[in-house]
C-alpha cells in the first residue's frame, strides 16, 4: 500500500502574526516558518502504518515557493521515502491545491491520501474534502484514530457532539486531527539521510492546473483590540465586579 501525504509550510504556530501596513496580507518575511501542525500528525500516522508493515511507500508532497521544500525534507527526515515539490507562488486556494493533488494522485496512484484537517494560516479546512470530491473517493475528516483493515479503514472522527466512527473503502482521503498521534522529532542522522532521498520538482502548469485565485482578497486587517482589563486583588472583589459592574452573574 502506498500513502501520499500532503504537507504545507505555514507561519509557525507560536509566532504572533503581524498585518502588513498596506493591508495586503500578513508579514511573512523573516518570520519563523514550520510544517502546518496537523500535517505533522498526517506524516506520523503514515510512518506508523508503514512501521506496522501495512504500507510499503510514503510520498510527501508540498505546493509552494522554493522554501516549501524544507517542509518535504522534514517529512523525509521522519520517515517519508520520497518527496514531490510543486512549485507555485502566491495564494493557492484549496480548490487549486486539490486539483494539483488530483493530478498527482492520477500519476502516483496512492491507496491513501493523508493531510492535516486544516491549515493554521488561512484556516480554510477544505482541501481534503475537495480532493475527495474531485476523485469521488470517500472522505474521513478530523480523524483521531485510524484502524487499517483489509480493504478499508475504520476511522474515529472528532465531531462537535463527541466522536463518530465510520468505515471508508480504500482508496480514501483522511484529514488528521491533532489528537491522532504524537509526531516524532527527526534525529540528526535522519535529517542527514533525508537530504539524499529523492525529491521531484514540477510546476502546477506542468500538471495543467490553473492556480489563479477565484476569490479576491480585498484587505487584511487587525481584529478590533479588546480594551485592557484590570487585575482584582481577591475572589471577593472578583465576584463583586462580576455582579455589580459587569452584571453577568
Amino acid at each position, binding site marked *: 500500500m502506498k500513502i501520499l501525504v500532503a504537507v504545507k509550510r505555514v507561519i509557525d504556530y507560536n509566532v504572533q502574526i503581524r*498585518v502588513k501596513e498596506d493591508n495586503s496580507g500578513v508579514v511573512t518575511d523573516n518570520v519563523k516558518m514550520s510544517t502546518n501542525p496537523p500535517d505533522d500528525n498526517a506524516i506520523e500516522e503514515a510512518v506508523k502504518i508503514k512501521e506496522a508493515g501495512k504500507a510499503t511507500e510514503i510520498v510527501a508532497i508540498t505546493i509552494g515557493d522554493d522554501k516549501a521544500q524544507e517542509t518535504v525534507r522534514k517529512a523525509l527526515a521522519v520517515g517519508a521515502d520520497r518527496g514531490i515539490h510543486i512549485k507555485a507562488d502566491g495564494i493557492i486556494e484549496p480548490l487549486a491545491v486539490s486539483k494539483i493533488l488530483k493530478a498527482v494522485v492520477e500519476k502516483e496512484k496512492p491507496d491513501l491520501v493523508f493531510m492535516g484537517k486544516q491549515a493554521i494560516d488561512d484556516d480554510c*479546512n*477544505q482541501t481534503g*474534502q475537495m480532493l475527495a470530491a474531485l476523485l469521488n473517493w470517500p472522505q474521513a475528516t478530523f480523524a483521531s484514530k485510524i484502524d487499517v483493515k483489509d480493504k478499508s479503514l475504520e476511522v474515529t472522527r472528532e*465531531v462537535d457532539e463527541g*466522536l463518530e466512527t*465510520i468505515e471508508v473503502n480504500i482508496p480514501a482521503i483522511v484529514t488528521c486531527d491533532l489528537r491522532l498521534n504524537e509526531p516524532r522529532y527527526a534525529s540528526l542522522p535522519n535529517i542527514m539521510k533525508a537530504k539524499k532521498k529523492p525529491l521531484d520538482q514540477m510546476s502546477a502548469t506542468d500538471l495543467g492546473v490553473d492556480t489563479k485565485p477565484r476569490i479576491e482578497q480585498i484587505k487584511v486587517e487587525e481584529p478590533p483590540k479588546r480594551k485592557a482589563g484590570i487585575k482584582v486583588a*481577591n475572589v471577593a472583589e472578583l465576584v463583586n465586579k*462580576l455582579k455589580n459592574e459587569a452584571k453577568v452573574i
Partner: protein
Amino acid sequence: MAVLLIAEHNNKELKPFTLNVINAATQIDQDTHVLLIGHNADIVAKSISEVSGVKKVIHVDSPIYENYVAENYVPVILKNAENYSHIVSAANTFGKNLMPRVAANLDTSQVSDIIKVLSADTFLRPIYAGNAFATVKINDSKKCVTIRPTSFDPAPSTGGSAEIVKGEPCEEYSLTKFIKKEEIKSDRPELGTARIVISGGRGLQSGENFKLITAVADKLNAAIGASRAAVDAGYITNDHQVGQTGKVVVPDLYIAVGISGAIQHLAGMKESKVIVAINKDGEAPIFSVADYGLEADLFEALPQFLEELNKLNTIQK
C-alpha cells in the same frame, strides 16, 4: 437568485445553530430556502417552516439519510443547487465536512467561516486563528459559504410559514459507512450556546480536579470548556475543547481557569463579552484578553469563588 441552506438536525430536532445560519443567510438574500436531508424528519421540516425568514423547505427523505454522511448528502445538494446563487451551512464539523465536497463538485472556490456579511458576494472572515480579519469577494457565480454560527444571532424560531416541498433522494454512496456516534449527553447548557462558560486548562493537573470547575459550573448553570492542553492530557473529552481547532464560543461570561492562553485557545474565546482569568502566573498571556484577572492558585481560588457565589442572594440563570 436565492440562498440554499443545508440544515443540521438529528431527525427529531433542528440543531440550534441552524437558526443562526438562517439569520446570516437572510442577510445575503431575503429568499432563503432550507434543504432538509434526513429520515422520518417531518417534525424537523415543520419546525424549519416556522422559522422567521425561511421562504421554502425542501425535504428529502430516505433511510439512507438516517445518519449524516457527507458523501450521501452532497449528490442531493448538487441536484438542488441549480437555481441558487449561494449554498451555505454552519462552519462547524457538520458544514466543514460537507461544503468543500459541494464546492469542488461545482468547481467553485469556497469561503469558510464568515463572521459578517458585507454584501451578497463580500464577506469578513478570520484568518490565522482570528489574529487577522480578511475581507474577501467571491467572483464565482455560484457561491459556497460556511458561516460561523456564534457570530450571528439566531433567527426567531416562530413567525414563518414556509411551504414544504418534497425532494427526490439520490443513489446511496456505497464506499463510506456510518458505524456509530458516541454523543456525550449532559444536562448542562451546550458549550456553543451557553450564557456562561467556565474552562479549565493544564493548571488543573488532573481530570479528577475538574470537579472544582464542575462545582462552579453547577452554581452558575454554565457550560464546561477546556484548553487543548487539558484535552490532550486526558483530563476531559474532546467535545469540551475551545479554540482554533475546537469550538468557538462567545458567551456573556467566560472564565478561564489554569489556562495560559495559547494563541490557538484565544482564537476560540476572545470574542466573549466578559472574560475572567484565574492563573497563578501573572505573566500568562490569558491576562492580556481578560477584563478581570485574578493572579491566584486555582486550588484556593475556586473553592473561595464558590463560597462567594453561595453568599449572593440571586444569580442570573
